[in-house]
């Protein structure tokens, strides 16, 4: 109950602060707010934009949530998203299912590199996954400037893929993954073990849980979902790869997961909120000439508010 309240409070704080920040740009907060709302849910065009943005956010959010639930600080959804997109592009000629599967496998494999480093050298995931993001980013940069560059060789991007995924297809996949995540975490024994590992690996170990297996599996699932997000984004939205393909979806997934209190169903609401925020911010840029990066500002406010609330709770202040 308190967690839901904390999430709602953080979301409201983000919107209010965004509106107030309009003063700094010489706009009335009320006007700014109405642009944000109409630009995200005010028309079917805006609504479509919000849905399309929410889907990758939902998947990267779930990816982060599952890893964090197992106590693994996977900050690498961005890199996993990229290699997912790459694998999907390469496997596109084998059909829709195969290419999406390829994106999941690539994302999982990319994430498991961090787990291997953990088991081999006790390297913390929070570092290795961030570093793997850079590797992934430059791998993509190399690919679109070299071996995978479009036939015309004009821009640093690939040719368009031959297959595509409809928005309704995207929605079905993302919602299924969301419900499956909830089922795994809260309705299966393995989910119980995964959460136990995240809460207290010592006690989990004494209770007979194979902690390392849980960590590796959570990482594989987490990476798989972020990779799938990349695949879906490629087939459903961008149709081609380019350097800024990931567009920060992986990092935004952290904010999405935290606002969703690491619960899959709440993460769905959180993803839609951030999707709307991002879409609304785009409209803000067009209409009021305020940079769309205010959406990033909104994410930061959400995270900071949540941190503030959680540390209050830990100090025993109601």
């Amino acid at each position, binding site marked *: 109950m308190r967690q839901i309240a904390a999430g709602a409070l953080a979301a409201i704080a983000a919107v209010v602060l965004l509106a107030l920040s309009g003063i700094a740009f010489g706009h009335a907060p009320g006007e700014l707010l109405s642009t944000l709302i109409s630009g995200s849910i005010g028309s079917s065009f805006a609504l479509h934009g919000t849905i399309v943005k929410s889907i990758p956010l939902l998947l990267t959010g779930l990816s982060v949530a599952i890893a964090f639930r197992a106590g693994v600080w996977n900050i690498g959804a961005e890199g996993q998203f990229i290699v997912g997109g790459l694998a999907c592009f390469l496997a596109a000629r084998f059909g829709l299912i195969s290419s999406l599967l390829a994106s999941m496998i690539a994302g999982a494999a990319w994430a498991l590199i961090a787990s291997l480093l953990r088991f081999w050298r006790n390297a913390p995931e929070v570092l290795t996954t961030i570093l793997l993001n850079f590797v992934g980013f430059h791998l993509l940069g190399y690919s679109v400037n070299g071996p995978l560059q479009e036939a015309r060789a004009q821009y640093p991007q690939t040719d368009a893929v031959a297959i595509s995924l409809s928005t309704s297809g995207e929605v079905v996949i993302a919602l299924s993954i969301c419900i499956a995540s909830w089922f795994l975490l809260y309705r299966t024994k393995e989910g119980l*073990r995964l959460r136990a590992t995240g809460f*207290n690996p*010592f*006690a989990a170990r*004494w*209770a007979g849980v194979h902690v390392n297996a849980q960590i590796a599996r959570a990482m594989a699932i987490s990476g798989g979902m972020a990779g799938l997000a990349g695949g879906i984004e490629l087939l459903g939205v961008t149709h081609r790869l380019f350097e800024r393909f990931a567009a920060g979806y992986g990092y935004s997934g952290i904010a999405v997961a935290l606002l969703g209190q690491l619960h899959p169903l709440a993460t769905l609401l959180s993803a839609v909120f951030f999707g709307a925020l991002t879409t609304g911010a785009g409209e803000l840029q067009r209409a009021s000439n305020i940079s769309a990066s205010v959406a990033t500002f909104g994410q930061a406010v959400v995270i900071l508010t949540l941190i503030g609330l959680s540390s209050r709770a830990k100090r025993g202040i109601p």
Partner: protein
Amino acid sequence: MFSVTSVVKIPMQLTNVTKSFGPTIAVDDVSLSVAPGEILGLIGENGAGKTTLMRIIAGEIEPDRGTIEVGGTIGFVHQHFMLVNEFTIAENLALVGAGDARFENSNRLVRDLSVGEKAAVELMKAIAKEPDLLILDEPTSVLTPNEAQKLFDTARDLASRGKSVILISHKIREVLSIATRTVVMRRGRIVREGGGAEQLARAMVGERTHVAPPLRRRTAAESRLYVRNLSVGTGEIVAVIGVAGNGQAELATMLRDTLPRETTAHIPEDRTRDGVIAEMSIAENLALVTNASAEELIATFGIRATGPRQRAGNLSGGNQQKLVLGRELARNPAIIVAAEPTRGLDIESTAFVHEQLRAAAARGAAILLITSDLDEAFTLADGIHVIFRGTLSERLTPAEAGTRAGQLMAGVR
């Protein structure tokens, strides 16, 4: 007419002090004072409220009611060491402004010290500033008899110079040997002052229904658990005793990692870290290990909780221990490895845990009991090993252990 105002500085005076933690009354309307030059022995079972009372005196905890007057400085040697492991002895002492003259080589890291040496550093910290009142909380539980003697000499020395000492312990004989006055705490109250060992003991445990261990005759039992010279037969309870830090934790961990989990129950020593998952509900904690119904287990093991959905972290220590016990024993395991299963529990919970272990043995389980509570070992065990610096002694009968355990624990062969 004139009035006399007392000018004798009383180091500490408590009046009607009460402190509750949730529904548990830890300290219940206690009035207590200590005079200069006095060594006050405070005895009581685990969970009687001794440590809480001392932490109130030291100002670490606010009481709910009552007044505290402290007429001087207090030195507090905690039951658990409060040292910086990565610092040297000298650095640890420098933190509180103490000198290191008493130590041969004060450049050693605290991490590398034996528990006895750590206790000595802790004591030096406490007496560095010549406190008017020195509180020693269960100081001897990790000490060899020799080290304990040194500690008591220091306490007597302080008292002879007009300082006051409070010694907390549950070892009656030890307290009687040094204290000038003895009070007994039970369930948060002071229930007795003065008297001989027999009377003190009775006040300490209250009306205890003593369950005598059933006489069991062993005939070449089949061995269930075997580690080098350690073997535990079907239906047998074998205890491993020793001064803390001599390899007990390593033994338990090794057994955890080698014995088949399906047939082995583990009761870990550190229940808050290793026993329960505080963030999860009772039901979830149970489901990690057993398919048994949470409601039934709560009833059978008398866990005081609002229901299966209560967070395990909100249970009291004793109820957390019952939760671990219930979870592990519900599967009717063939082997039970129980480390300090009653540490910090009140008398009733302790009796309950003992009863459960005996019942499990009667059902044919092989039980290895790793404990620093000698009474527990002697009450329950059919055979006793002493562990010292990672090595187990040969198996002793309780009678043999009664005469030899002290020496073996101190490493004297």
